[in-house]
């Protein structure tokens, strides 16, 4: 090879043989150029990310100075009058995220176990590819499905739940005076429907994280459990699930982070309101990202600053969730480099 890069410099052949040799390297020109380019690429990537955070913070300060701490408790959104806050939209975001988790968690957990423990051979690799494919399906396609198919088919289910479980406050559907509503229009465009669609969208992410964690459960313990007479489910319960706990928690949180940030499917389904709506099944909800998509167009400079503040809140929430998740996943993972 041409690059004489790692020239070992002072090799002390003579003198005290017991003293350690001093080794040093002098990188060649190509190597130092390479190192600098790689550093620069890393620095650019980081600076893009920091620029996002910095820009949001800077542009949000105008609005945050006016709104103060009320920004987190105010429900209305009218920056023109100075009354604006993210309480309602943040509540809606979290509601949709939680409904999504309730939909996605059983599906993702079951599918991950199916893929890592039950399915074998060609079937398994096909299904794994399908899960990956699902992650690449654009969110607008899920949105279309949610609006034009799921909405009509979920309304009877929602009505059934509210008829029989109205005594649980979140499943009750009432109007302002407290009278129970039963017509279809009361159940459309709810956080429940949006949550189901978003749930389907986050399943692939969760499944692949969990599957990876499950398949790393040590083979010795698995075989030990089976040799002691455990059934497959017994082995899963005593070996795979405890070893994969980090993956389950981390994958779930990653999914939650995604669900909170989802925009277009939510925007297409919900009818936006700016009050806190505890009734999951009732029409009307909101989310931070839908708010931004809804209002950015007509926004004045100050209103845009307010939207930036909302975006900043969403950004920080997803950042915290994601950091926690990836540290949990990373702690449960081992082996950085493979040997061939």
């Amino acid at each position, binding site marked *: 090879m041409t690059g004489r890069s790692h020239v070992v410099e002072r090799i002390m052949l003579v003198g005290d043989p017991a003293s350690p040799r001093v080794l040093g390297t002098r990188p060649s020109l190509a190597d130092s*150029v390479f190192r600098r380019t790689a550093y620069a690429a890393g620095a*650019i990537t980081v600076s893009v990310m920091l620029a996002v955070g910095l820009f949001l913070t800077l542009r949000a300060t105008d609005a945050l100075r006016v709104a103060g701490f009320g920004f987190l408790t105010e429900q209305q959104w009218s920056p023109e009058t100075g009354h604006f806050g993210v309480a309602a939209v943040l509540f809606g975001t979290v509601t949709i995220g939680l409904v999504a988790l309730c939909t996605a968690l059983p599906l993702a957990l079951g599918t991950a176990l199916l893929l890592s423990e039950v*399915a074998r051979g060609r079937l398994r690799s096909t299904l794994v590819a399908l899960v990956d494919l699902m992650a690449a399906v654009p969110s607008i*396609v899920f949105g279309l499905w949610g609006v034009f198919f799921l909405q009509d088919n979920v309304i009877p289910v929602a009505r*059934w739940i509210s008829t029989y479980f109205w005594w649980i406050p979140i499943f009750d559907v009432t109007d302002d005076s407290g009278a129970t509503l039963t017509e279809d229009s009361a159940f459309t465009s709810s956080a429940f429907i949006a949550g189901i669609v978003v749930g389907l969208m986050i399943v692939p992410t969760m499944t692949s994280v969990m599957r990876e964690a499950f398949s790393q459960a040590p083979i010795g313990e698995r075989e030990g459990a089976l040799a002691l007479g455990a059934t*497959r489910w017994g082995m899963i319960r005593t070996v795979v699930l405890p070893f994969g706990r980090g993956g389950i928690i981390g994958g779930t949180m990653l999914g939650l982070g995604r669900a909170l940030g989802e925009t277009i499917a939510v925007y297409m389904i919900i009818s936006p309101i700016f009050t806190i709506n505890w009734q999951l099944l009732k029409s009307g909800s909101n989310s931070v990202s839908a708010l931004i998509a809804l209002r950015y167009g007509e926004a004045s400079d100050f209103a845009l600053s307010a939207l930036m503040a909302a975006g900043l809140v969403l950004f920080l929430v997803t950042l915290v969730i*994601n950091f926690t998740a990836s540290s949990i996943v990373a702690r449960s993972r081992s082996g*950085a480099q493979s040997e061939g």
Partner: protein
Amino acid sequence: MSDTLLEAPPAPASAPRGARRTTVPDRVGETGERRRLHRATFEERFDLIGAAAAGLATSTLLFGWIAPLTGVVGWIVVSYLAFLGYYVLLTALVGDRQRIADRVATVLLVSAGAILFGALVFVVVFALLRGRDAFWHLNFFTQSMELAGPLDPLTEGGILHAIVGTLIQITIALAITIPLGIATAVFLNEVGGRFARFVRTIVDAMTALPSIVAGLFIYAAVIQLVTHQRSGFAAALAITVMMLPIVIRAADVVLRLVPGNLREASYALGAGRWRTVWGVVLPTARSGLVTAVILGTARGIGETSPVLLTSGVTAVLSFNPFSGPMISLPLQVFDFVRSPEPTMIARGFGTAAVLLMLVLVLFGIARVIGGRPPGQLSPRQQQRAQEASRRDADRMARRAAPVTASSTAPSESPAPVPHEKADPS
């Protein structure tokens, strides 16, 4: 990790051969029936099918005659619950609690998978089916919506402008993402150090960036400060911000899988870092890197919300990404289905079908290219590698031939064979 352990190929041929071979025992005397480990027994299959039939029958009875229940969803749920109940009962006839738990858990896992994959296929097929009305008109691909109004039939107007917009935007995004993303991934793996760990953390955080926030950032930083108008270029930048972390993470994983001893072999031969990266690491990981880029592209193409804020909506075909609005496929879908007109909704589904096809094709290509881990070659690649090493062997043999010929000659020839030099005695 355990994947490779569980499904390891048969032991390599290097195992001692012939020393002690496994022998087939004589089949005299009592030998039982051959056991098939991977197949359900007749009884298990009977339990499953019987319970399913009983469950369906029960719920049909309940819905049709006995109880005042209606609705397809309810029927499915009741049948499933009845099926589970019967299955537990049937298993309990022969097995203990452990076995019941095992069977029921397996059924639940399979059901979760079936629901999920059913839903996925349904979402995709739904968009494709609803899109077929618009899809079969040729003008859908050759015209823009410039001259077609919402009330025009499907034989007028098309989405050429959106297809062109998507292609231009994704090309710009790729032109930034590929060099930057792969260079960053190389930095994370090959240079390392404290800063690299910091970069990795930041990239991890960046994957969580809500897409709308990326759009908002470009809107505030590029459109408001620099260009003062929405443009295809701004949309491409927003897509880049979304794609970059995906590509970096996928490429990082692939590079991490490059066997460490290949790198060490390269260093041992005297190659520097750059030569090792360029000549060993990147070629080894090539297919995985291509897959990473293609998967990032598939994600980038489908992004709607960042584009919504940055590209602007237009019905006019535009080739200039730097001025004027330029719509892309997902945004066009969004714009179409906002209209209450059935033809516009049909166009929206048609556009979604085109978008889905694009994603499916990209995904298929990625699977074909990146189906195997780094270092494992396809048959053709293997053949090529063998040919190359045969050529090398020939070349070395040709070079060595005169040397060996002269070294066998008497010692006046200056044969550079160190072994002979170092052995004067």
